[in-house]
């Protein structure tokens, strides 16, 4: 996943301006990154002890839940795919200095559009084509939602935070309307969602597990593509300039509003694809909880990664493993599965508050934009 070609000879070779600093890791930084992790683990261990479970047993249960069987491991990777896609999209908006909380809604709208495409096109067209068109429709839906949010921000001057949050709920409302209205299952309308798609449209999975290799491959490609675009293209550099100082970028001739809008649209496309894959590969139907908060989880991932593409993958994998591993906690130890969320949240919070590292807030983040 390295955006840095390995075959560059010698140290004198010029590195691309954009990614260079992302690769500089020195011991002090490693320590400062691990300190929040240690503290977060200590906090959660204390919490477990408070709830009457041995921290070691919890750790073992988490590991077992995540990697105890091939099935579980496949599930970790299956959850990784939407996280990577949303995370890639968020790297664009963070690079442009935007707190984009609307990623959840983009994912939902992607799922919605994919379902709509499937309903409209199947069985009129061959299954493979329908699946491809569903993914495209998902991307398109996400772009639409992202562009709307972006237009609210750049044209309507609405804070991107509230524009995004608001659009999340509107997307949720549309899905609810469809699930309980026009698209409801014959007879019963319920939170369980629409009628399942024909199994011909399901993404093929690896040996009966939940992992769809196609989805994971797409997600990995998205992340690599994101790293390349952000690190090695003029567009990526312009986004960075906008994120660091919109005024100066404008004086230097960068059309700031247009680049922000583009960042919103790209993040929408990637989140929309994630939504489409959730429908085609995981749930096989549209349901109100289709996002499973994965968009917000991706936000946490990117915040912890300090907006560096290279760190998104390992952190997303860690978070995904935590999520899957914790599903077994209620059965084995009588603890809530949300424990994983607590660990993730405390970890990101401590990283944000960490006195050693002010870098999370760097590279943009203009809270003054209201």
């Amino acid at each position, binding site marked *: 996943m390295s955006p840095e070609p390995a075959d560059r000879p010698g140290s004198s070779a010029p590195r691309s301006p954009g990614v260079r600093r992302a690769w500089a890791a020195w011991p002090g930084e490693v320590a400062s990154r691990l300190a929040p992790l240690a503290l977060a683990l200590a906090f959660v261990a204390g*919490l477990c002890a408070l*709830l009457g479970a041995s921290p070691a047993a919890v750790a073992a249960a988490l590991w077992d839940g995540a990697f105890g069987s091939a099935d579980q491991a496949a599930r970790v990777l299956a959850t990784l795919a939407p996280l990577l896609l949303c995370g890639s999209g968020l790297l664009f908006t963070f690079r442009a200095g935007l*707190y984009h*909380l609307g990623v959840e809604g983009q994912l939902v709208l992607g799922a919605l559009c994919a379902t709509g495409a499937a309903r409209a096109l199947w069985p009129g067209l061959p299954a493979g084509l329908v699946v491809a068109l569903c993914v495209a429709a998902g991307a398109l839906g996400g772009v639409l939602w992202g562009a709307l949010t972006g237009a*609210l921000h750049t*044209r*309507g*001057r*609405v*804070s991107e*935070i*509230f*524009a995004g*949050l*608001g*659009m*999340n*709920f*509107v997307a*949720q*409302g549309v899905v*609810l*309307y469809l*699930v*309980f*209205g026009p698209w409801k299952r014959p007879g019963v*309308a319920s939170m369980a969602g629409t009628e399942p798609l024909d199994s011909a449209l399901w993404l093929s999975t690896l040996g009966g597990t939940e992992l769809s290799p196609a989805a994971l491959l797409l997600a990995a490609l998205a992340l690599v593509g994101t790293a390349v675009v952000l690190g090695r293209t003029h567009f990526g550099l312009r986004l960075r300039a906008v994120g660091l100082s919109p005024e100066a970028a404008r004086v230097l001739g960068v059309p700031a509003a247009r680049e922000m809008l583009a960042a919103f649209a790209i993040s929408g496309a990637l989140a929309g694809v994630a939504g489409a894959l959730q429908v085609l590969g995981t749930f096989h139907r549209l349901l*109100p909880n289709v996002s499973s908060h994965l968009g*917000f989880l991706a*936000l*946490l991932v990117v*915040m912890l990664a300090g907006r560096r593409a290279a760190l998104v993958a390992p952190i997303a994998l860690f978070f995904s493993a935590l999520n899957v591993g914790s599903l077994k906690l209620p059965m084995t130890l*009588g*603890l*809530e599965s*949300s*424990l*994983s*969320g*607590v660990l*993730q*949240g*405390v970890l*990101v*919070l401590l990283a*944000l*508050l960490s*006195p050693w590292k*002010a870098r*999370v*807030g760097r590279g943009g*983040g203009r*809270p*003054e934009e*209201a």
Partner: protein
Amino acid sequence: MDDGGELLSLLATALAASTPLVYAAVGETLTERAGVINLSAEGSMMLSAMVGFAAALTTGSVLAGFAAAAATGALVALVVAIGGIHLRRSQIAIGFVLAMLCADLSSVLGGPFVRVPGPTVPAMSIPVLRDVPILGPLFFRSDPLVYASYLLVACAWVFLYRTRAGLLVRAVGEQPAAAHARGAHVTRVRTAATLVGGALVGIGGAAYSLDFKAGWSHRHTAGYGWIALAIVIFGGFDPVRAALGACLFGVLSSMASLGQSALPSVPAQVFSVAPFALMIVVLALTSSGLLERLGALLPDAARRPLLRAFDATPPAALGKPYPAAADGAEARPRGADQGTK
């Protein structure tokens, strides 16, 4: 007569549904007026609802439940204050992470309390007033918590617009540098407003779990915190308008049940997102200057009230740390170079 009664009971339900939001929205309004965004309301409310319910259940005292909830809300706000005001990290990032974290924490800690019957705020109608036609059934046949929310809105208004401290809160949210030059302790005022606002958000959570929908289940208050944040903007950062916004939300959500029979094709849940759609429209109208341009077509007498009613201009320094990141000695305010003598 029948229609009137139905409408009254609908409105009464709407008021009951809005009470938790009134507390939370007024609290958040207070915080944001001081220039601090506490984005954690969603998680903070949920955690406080859980803690409040658990405390009331174990002590048997509803009052203790509310106290615990307020303390929880204030504690969460303290994290925002430390990170966002004193360490000057992004308030948005910290608030968002706390929203996620506290929601999960409420599930982890609240496991033993799921669907356990517990104490609730006792109903108490107010003698004499309850018999006033229309107003009586609407406002005075409920419980002390609801009455306290009326009082809270009035107090918040008086505080913000009629007291020295309230004026200071507004001043600090608008021009912290000017307030500092006049001798105000900006970070102190902001911290206080954040803590009090957080405590009110906490009480809002307990109002949910001890009164409106008594009890606890996973993600019991889901969505309410975000809605409270939307209402603050919709209400133009004014406590009275925020309370009205909360009532509007209550009406919308209780219309869901009514709407189901009237418009069977529209599912009830759709009404719950209406406040957000409204918020976006209001925000887009006001921040883009479109409203002002539309208003210019109206006669002056009609324009000013219209603009005021929909004004949602945020405090000028909302979300901005003070003192701002030091650029040079010239720009640095007094406190920063205290050590250099």
